[in-house]
């Protein structure tokens, strides 16, 4: 099986699906000839031409608004937002229109749009090239939210997202775009939306993570093991609708849980996970669920490694939870 990094795997998935389904079109800023600022769409302009890989004017509202129209027509648009920090000019189209179109039309219409966008910090991007806005979309009924952590899942989840009947926010953790390499089958396969992966089994503490922070969770779990604490690590992969069964099952086993995410703590997705765990497994809890997250500040530049919930911050939380 070929080795690919995430950029290559997503590129491969896009190419495969564009060959398979002529309704799939890409649009966004710089997605054409240059292949996107992270080169995720590289080569697709040459293969599919400027009618299916479209450089647009500099307007995210225009990109998403047009994608909604294309989807209503019956195309399958996969717009790219260059950085998820720049999705907010399109927020009205996403929240008011994309998310609600099926519901408000009583199911007469639907618009299936997959918005791909790089997310997260760790690339020296400062305030506006590092943010993780997932909870701002999870709160909005009607959207699905996906965030892969490796090349295999990235391709499989992307194909599943494009074939899913509902709008999907597909967040790509840019810090591991090239670092997360692995075996990726050449042909067609999907990874089911809504299913988490247990990437490490353990009995003492459940660590829930996704995207780039998964590797930090694993690193912390390794160190915890050296300290006699056996962590189970869950990679959510789909953030919403979340795989509640996988979470509850793990928490019932361990009774202790640490949630990790890059986004600011307050009203981040970690809060929802803690609340759900309370509702579903309260009597199994032997310690308060802890959150290790970005701080409630804008994303800093120089101190970004202190801001991110890296292994050095996860480990103490795991030990504290284990020893509670």
């Amino acid at each position, binding site marked *: 099986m070929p080795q690919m990094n995430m950029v290559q795997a997503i590129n491969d998935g896009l190419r495969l699906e564009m060959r398979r389904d002529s309704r799939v079109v890409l649009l966004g800023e710089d997605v054409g000839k240059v292949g996107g600022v992270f080169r995720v769409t590289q080569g697709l302009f040459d293969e599919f031409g400027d009618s299916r890989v*479209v450089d647009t004017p500099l*307007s995210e509202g225009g990109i998403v*608004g047009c994608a909604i*129209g294309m989807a209503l027509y019956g195309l399958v648009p996969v717009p790219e937002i260059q950085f998820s920090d720049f999705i907010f000019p399109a927020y*009205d189209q996403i929240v008011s229109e994309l998310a609600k179109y099926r*519901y408000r039309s009583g*199911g007469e*219409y639907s618009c299936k749009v997959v918005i791909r966008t790089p997310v997260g910090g760790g690339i020296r991007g400062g305030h506006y090239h590092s943010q993780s806005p997932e909870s701002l979309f999870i709160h909005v009924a009607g959207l699905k939210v996906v965030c892969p952590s490796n090349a295999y899942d990235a391709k499989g989840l992307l194909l599943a997202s494009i074939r899913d009947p509902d709008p999907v926010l597909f967040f790509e953790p840019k810090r591991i775009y090239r670092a997360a390499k692995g075996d990726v089958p050449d042909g067609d396969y999907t990874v089911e939306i809504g299913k988490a992966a247990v990437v490490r089994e353990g009995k003492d503490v459940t660590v829930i993570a996704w995207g780039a922070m998964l590797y930090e969770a694993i690193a912390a779990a390794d160190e915890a093991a050296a300290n006699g604490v056996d962590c189970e690590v869950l990679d959510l992969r789909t953030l919403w609708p979340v795989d509640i069964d996988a979470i509850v099952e793990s928490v019932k086993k361990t009774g202790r849980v640490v949630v990790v995410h890059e986004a600011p703590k307050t009203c981040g997705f970690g809060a929802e996970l803690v609340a759900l765990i309370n509702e579903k497994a309260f009597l199994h809890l032997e310690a308060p669920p802890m959150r290790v997250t970005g701080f409630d500040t804008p994303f800093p530049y120089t101190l970004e490694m202190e801001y991110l919930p890296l292994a050095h911050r996860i480990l103490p939380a795991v030990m504290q939870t284990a020893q509670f």
Partner: protein
Amino acid sequence: MNGITATAAKYSPSESLNDDVVKAMRSDGTLDPSNDPRISRELAVSLYEAMVRIRMLDERLVALQRQGRIGFHIGSYGEEAAILGSAAALRPNDWLFPCYREFGAALWRGMSLESYLNNMFGNANDPAKGRQMPDHYTCKAAKFTSISSPIGTQITQAVGFAWGAKSQKEDLVTLTYFGEGATSSNEFHNGMNFAAVFKTPTVMFCRNNGWAISVPSEKQTASATFAVKGVAYGMPSVRVDGNDIFAVIKVTRDAILRAAAGFGPTLIEALTYRMSGHSTSDDPKAYRPDDAVVEWGKRDPLMRFRKHLEMNGLWNEAKQVELDARVDAEIRDAITVAEKVAPPALETMFEDVYESVPWHLREQCAEMVAGPRAKGHGGH
């Protein structure tokens, strides 16, 4: 501070309807040959009948709202020619991306009165399943998309739809309605720019009715007209007497044919007037002087259309009496039926959020159905 005084509106027919504005109807009952859309007598009469129907609907719905039998209505009184004329210019394969005032266009394109009224009552048969406010219907059969409240969003969507059709080489034009207030929205800018850059087959139909709730059109922009905004996007535009149904048909049809022929979008500014309040929630007395209403009232699109038909022997008082009675009965009957339909079933609240119902909504639905009912709820 803002350089614009808050005096009476300056948007008047005498000042606005200058020579640059396309007009067709002449006082002698003829049509200006260069702007005559050359529609059949039958079409003219049925458009007139449709106009009477929506005018009467407006009146009935306002009354229903006053009686507390429906929650809300946003009507088209005074703007019927702009709405029906543009809808009548569409070809069967063309699509409408509405604002919220164009129920006349939806009915003209085939939405049933029953369906419309089901939406007004938000009942179980409402195409929107009672989920949205009155006047927020949807009718795919009429190639009429779903109405939402946020201003301007449909403009960009109309462009994307047309762009999609163009990519599939399907002969189809989209027409999107919006008010002159909406030209200030983000999505007007985005829709105009993308339409022009990608040469999509789209007609941007701006109903300049003089008001955005209480804000007069001259406070909305400092540009000379709304049509001139096309220049910023490299898009041709035209101004038309929006109360002259023949002129509206003509310019809209030209724009559609132009789009269908691959020449891209056109911006149409239809000069008309919102004769009533913004909606049943609004009382224009607080901000609008009567004189402008009186002046525009003299150019009432229904009255002008009727006069034209009468001068051409196509209409008379007897026909009017018959029509009034027929439409009144039709509306009354339809209201009686729609009002009796039950509200949507509780479970429907959780459907259509996604194509299938995920675990959390299944749980929430079960919890809600099993729980006690709200006081005053009319549901099952």
